[in-house]
């Protein structure tokens, strides 16, 4: 078991180093640091301002080999080494756009992001699994068909439309929640998060419910279900104790991989609902040519994805002992 975990972590570490190399090529080799500096300080800034800005932001070193240095410094005093050092030690530096420390922006954005993504994740999972179990229970009845049609309808609508329609219907016509905005005061924060969470749950409802329904129907047709019924087990007990438990592996596949991404926020939801989370930070970094922030967010995304994969593998192994043999 330990060897299995170590192997998975080793693969993850190698992948992460590869991702960092790719990031270096994209953000330093393809994008000229001079262009980044020019964009940040303005076209008409004086040469010494450029130079100072590049020094402050760590763009003033040679790319891969420092011909002006000697010994190990030829390779360590370079952008490549600095890039690896910073990313691996989580020293993300300052934003190219407004010079604020990126780690502070991450800290400030994490809670608002989790405020959306965690309830969205939990509610989405509970609603989808519950409805899928329910329709699997009433399979091939009009309930099953009605829910399937609703699922297809919700899957056919673009995510952006949910947001705009949600803001219009729930915020403007029904006037239940504010259309957008954010206030971290615990007494009122739920008022601002309710609408984006509901919109998020609804937009993911169709695909998730259909997926889980298929899993449950597959399990319902298996021999152990027939055996359980033959032994006099009730329908509710069969669904919850047997079908749900045996469907955990594919559910875990879908669920565990999502958990790390809860930290990176929801790009569209945060942007449209004015939530100052990490998703909005990423969108803003893209729009504002804030390369250092964007680099950090891409790196964290990759890191969390790899962590999600490892977590999934571990949860597989825990849920099904046969997996670790593979």
């Amino acid at each position, binding site marked *: 078991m330990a060897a299995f975990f170590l192997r998975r972590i080793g693969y993850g570490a190698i992948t992460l180093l590869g991702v960092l190399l790719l990031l270096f090529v994209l953000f330093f080799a393809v994008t000229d640091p001079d262009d980044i500096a020019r964009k940040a300080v303005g076209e008409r800034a004086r040469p010494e301002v450029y130079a100072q800005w590049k020094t402050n932001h760590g763009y003033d070193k040679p790319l891969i080999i420092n011909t002006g240095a000697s010994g190990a410094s030829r390779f360590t005093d370079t952008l490549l080494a600095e890039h690896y050092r910073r990313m691996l030690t989580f020293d993300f530096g300052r934003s190219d756009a407004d010079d604020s420390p990126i780690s502070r922006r991450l800290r400030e954005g994490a809670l608002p992001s989790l405020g959306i993504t965690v309830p969205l994740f939990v509610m989405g999972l509970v609603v989808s699994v519950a409805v899928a179990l329910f329709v699997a229970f009433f399979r091939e009845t009009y309930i099953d068909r009605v829910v399937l049609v609703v699922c297809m309808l919700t899957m056919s609508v673009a995510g952006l439309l949910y947001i705009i329609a949600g803001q219009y219907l729930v915020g403007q016509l029904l006037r*239940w929640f504010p259309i957008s905005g954010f206030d971290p005061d615990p007494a009122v924060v739920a008022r601002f998060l309710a609408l984006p969470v509901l919109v998020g749950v609804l937009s993911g409802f169709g695909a998730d419910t259909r997926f889980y329904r298929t899993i449950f129907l597959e399990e319902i047709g298996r021999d152990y279900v027939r055996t359980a019924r033959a032994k006099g087990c009730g329908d509710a007990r069969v669904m919850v104790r047997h079908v749900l438990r045996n469907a955990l592996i594919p559910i875990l596949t879908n669920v565990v991989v999502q958990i790390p991404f809860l930290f990176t926020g929801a790009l569209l939801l945060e942007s449209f609902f004015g939530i100052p989370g990490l998703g909005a930070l990423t969108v803003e970094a893209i729009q504002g040519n804030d390369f250092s922030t964007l680099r950090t967010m891409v790196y964290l995304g990759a890191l969390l994805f790899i962590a999600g994969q490892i977590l999934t593998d571990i949860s597989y192994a825990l849920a099904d002992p046969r997996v670790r043999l593979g």
Partner: protein
Amino acid sequence: MAALAACVAATGCTNNPYPQTDRDKKVLYSSFYEAPKTLDPAVAYTTAEHVITGNVYDTLLEYHYLARPYRLIPGLAVSVPKAQDLPDGKQSYRFQLRPGVLFHADPCFPPDAAGRRTREVTAADLAFALARIADPAVNSPVIGSFAQIAGFGDFSKQLVELRRSDKAFAALPVHEQYAKVGGIAGVLAHGSHELEIVLSQANAQILYWFAMPFTTPVAWEAVAAYDGKDGRDSFADHAVGTGPFRLALYEKQYRFSLARNELWYGTLTANSDAPGAVFPSKIDAKDVAEGRIDPAYAGRHLPFVDRVTFHREREGIPQFNKLLEGYYDDGGIIKESFDAVIQSGRLSPAMQARGMRLDVTVEPSIFYVGFNMEDPVVGTPAGERGRRLRQAMSVAVDSRQYLELFLNGRGLPAQTLLPPEIFGFDGSYKNPFRQYDVERARQLLADAGYKNGIDPTTGNRLKLSFDTSATTAAANLQFEYLANSWRQIGLDVEINATTYNQFQDKVRRGAYQIFSWGWLADFPDPENFFFLLACENARSKSGGPNTAGFCNAQFDSLYHQMKYLPNDAHRADLIRQMLVILERERPWIELYHLEEFVLSHAWLVNSKPMGISYPAYKYKDVRPELRARLQTEWNAPLRWPLYLILCAIVVLTVPAVRTYYRERL
């Protein structure tokens, strides 16, 4: 559904985004799109930044809130100074600073005898602010605008040199560095309340710069205390000014708030009748008739609101919907809703029924298509042929249709580069090369030697490159429209869309032919438009803003004569001559002057769009009781759909459960 019901119940079921406790308070609500990058007054330049710096920092001079054309009045200065001629063609302005002006209370100041952490503003604080602009390390975007202050450039050079050569000097706090260098020779503090600015040559326009936050007094204590190191705030995020409002909350990614400054000079008895501290007593009848200004406010002391709160809206649709719900006091109109809000050039009946008011102002701006005047085909090297080609392309563009298609008609078709309210603007002038006429354009093209757009040297249609720096679908449509205007007269125009950086690189290399650009003036003077075409500002030569690279000796001579003159008949004559040159040479195709449409609610009082200046919240007022009543009326929640949905679920589910129990048990 249960979760939804719980949510509705738990959140109080209201779309009001503000605390109930603020309902009856004099709070003004506004929104912003882009987060401010810096509040350092020497650097802040964007609209979002000036919304804060323009209200938190006071200036020596300011614009009269109601007078048009724009007029300067004293702010922190006792009066608007007159120029004094000095030997060698130099000129000086002496500003008398009001006594008793205090900085905002802030921990960067030691406590005074009364226990207040503030201190009086002196002329040295104004000199310090100008020294910061001159300091290349501050990277002020307006460093070039003060170059005519005697010794300004020398001060910059000495600073750079000393910092490079003397590490001990570089380690000193900046105010000590400035003092060691001896300050700017042309910025003289005479005692604590008089500042003299000596200019190396006459420049009447320099006064406008003292109505901008760049020149606000800056406390050295604040710059020293907020250095951004070791967890301390940065001065770019921590404003310590003298203005009518102080920065009470600054979470720049999503909200900030300005609160009334109890130490403001206008609130203190000694200065309470200063021109910048009272509402103008002379009010235009038109402003009253159109409901913009309440005459009862004439002569009353400023400011009127206790707080101005800004919330970030990254998207236009939610921002506009919240404006309609009454949760923002004023705002612009989004393109998607323009036809529903404006009908036949007026507010729609639905908007009128809500008591909303529409203000339309032409911004001091010019949007144009420019030619690279160094290009061998479209520029000066092509001689008369190039000139005719530019004239033909100018006549082929229909600004009116362009505005209708892309901006809901929110613009004034431009005849010259000068917008209304700027000295030299002539509303009756019709530029012969800006009257849309396809046949004439074809004729001009034939005169240029490109009959039907055919280049005689190749036998093919003349191929031109339109280089753009925006890659969005909406922007591309606009560029396509312009390209099609030229294609219809036979030219083969190719759009080369690049990123901003790539475009800048093309400009640096001179590898472009046609481009599209815009300009919003810093101050209301024709010089602030004509300088965009002065040879000394050619981007290829000096990196200046003359992207067209237009160089015309006669134009430059007239520009230098006109540049620093006061607005009189002689200046008007020089401007006319310059416009004649631009009319003929066509380095630009002037497209339009942007119009700002602002919707205001009935409870917002004294809101007059400023155009050139900064949003002056000290003049505005709100009627909170009317706002609270209308917000409640417009936003009563509808609960019945929730019950309907719950009923529908029960109706759908019950038969299934019944069937299940009947058939399976």
